[in-house]
């Protein structure tokens, strides 16, 4: 299945990362009157026309898709902020602080709430440039790997997920090669050698 995570390669599929991102809050301006919604995941509303409200993104997009609201662009997605972030990303090795789910949130909004984003193409190209610079930075970080605990400040959910499978195997290999001088990789030590079963086989219950 496309969305189902393949257990061997990476644990979480991109769709599952996006699913988690859809619980992040965003501000909407509804154009209808609606009673409050008492969901399993929490209570939202009541909603009044033209009165801003905070809701999870999945709810905002559902209302948007049915023409019941407009979505207010999150502050961090403003052109001023993104331009600053892009500059800072280019100037330093460190990752700039961005929402943990910035890749997914921006994509969801570009796909389903274009009209609510003033000069959307500019915002999108800024985000894509930021993402490319950061992905490249992820790679350079990976070059400095050693067999020890690795920490990443401000890395986002999708960036982590893209390198999880590769980095996991790499760290495993470094950990093994740097340690294997001390602990030999054999599963058993000398004294536990299997003897040849020499005595007559007793009819015993097969141990299960």
């Amino acid at each position, binding site marked *: 299945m496309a969305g189902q995570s393949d257990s061997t390669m990476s644990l979480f599929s991109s769709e599952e990362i996006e699913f988690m991102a859809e619980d992040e809050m965003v501000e909407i301006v509804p154009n209808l009157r609606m009673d409050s919604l008492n969901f399993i995941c929490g209570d939202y509303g009541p909603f009044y026309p033209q009165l801003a409200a905070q809701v999870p993104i999945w709810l905002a997009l559902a209302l948007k898709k049915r023409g019941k609201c407009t979505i207010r662009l999150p502050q961090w997605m403003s052109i001023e902020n993104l331009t600053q972030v892009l500059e800072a990303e280019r100037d330093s090795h460190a990752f700039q602080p961005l929402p943990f789910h910035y890749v997914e949130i921006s994509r969801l909004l570009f*796909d389903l709430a274009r009209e609510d984003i003033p000069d959307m193409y500019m915002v999108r190209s800024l985000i894509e440039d930021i993402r490319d610079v950061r992905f490249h930075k992820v790679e350079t970080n990976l070059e400095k790997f050693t067999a020890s605990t690795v920490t990443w400040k401000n890395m986002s959910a999708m960036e982590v997920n893209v390198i999880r499978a590769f980095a996991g195997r790499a760290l495993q290999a470094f950990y093994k090669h740097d340690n294997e001088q001390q602990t030999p990789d054999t599963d058993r030590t000398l004294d536990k*050698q299997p003897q040849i079963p020499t005595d007559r086989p007793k009819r015993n219950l097969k141990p299960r």
Partner: protein
Amino acid sequence: MANYYDIDSILVEEEFVPVVFQKAINGVKIDESTEKGYVEQGSKTQLPFWLAHELHMRQAVSIGVPACFNQKTRLEIQADAACVDLRSRCPYFYEFGCKLAPLCDKSIGLLLAYAFRIRYKEVLHKAHTTAFAAASRFLMLLTKEETYMYEAAQSSMAAFKKWRMGGPRLQRASILGRKRKPAE
């Protein structure tokens, strides 16, 4: 054995090592050519690692350094580790080396760590940037462990790009293999 059913763990132990028999052995033919069911002490042959290792632990054989870790390969690795064709020397170069080092030559461990550190950067760079085709010559050089790392990066990148493109989220179960041509 933590990985009794693991295929790679089984295949690693099939690699052959040169041995010298320290004890005479009866009732076993070490090579098909002779009918002789007897092995003299001191005779030399190649045994799969799973057997050589057990016999070594009982001082029945001594283990020599296999070809894939000989001086020639070591020099090549020291010269330019990234372009050495390790796959043809031994597809399980690292795992096999880890098992062998404590038995016959400690320095193999250092060789592995050194080779891996350099080749790792190549795999990292190629896996995250070049399109699959251009990298194929490079792929031929990689050991199993390196290939798994390369594939892990490639498929994660592909999955990310696929998600970004959108498209149908529900697919035909991969278990069924390629789609057979629907009868037109």
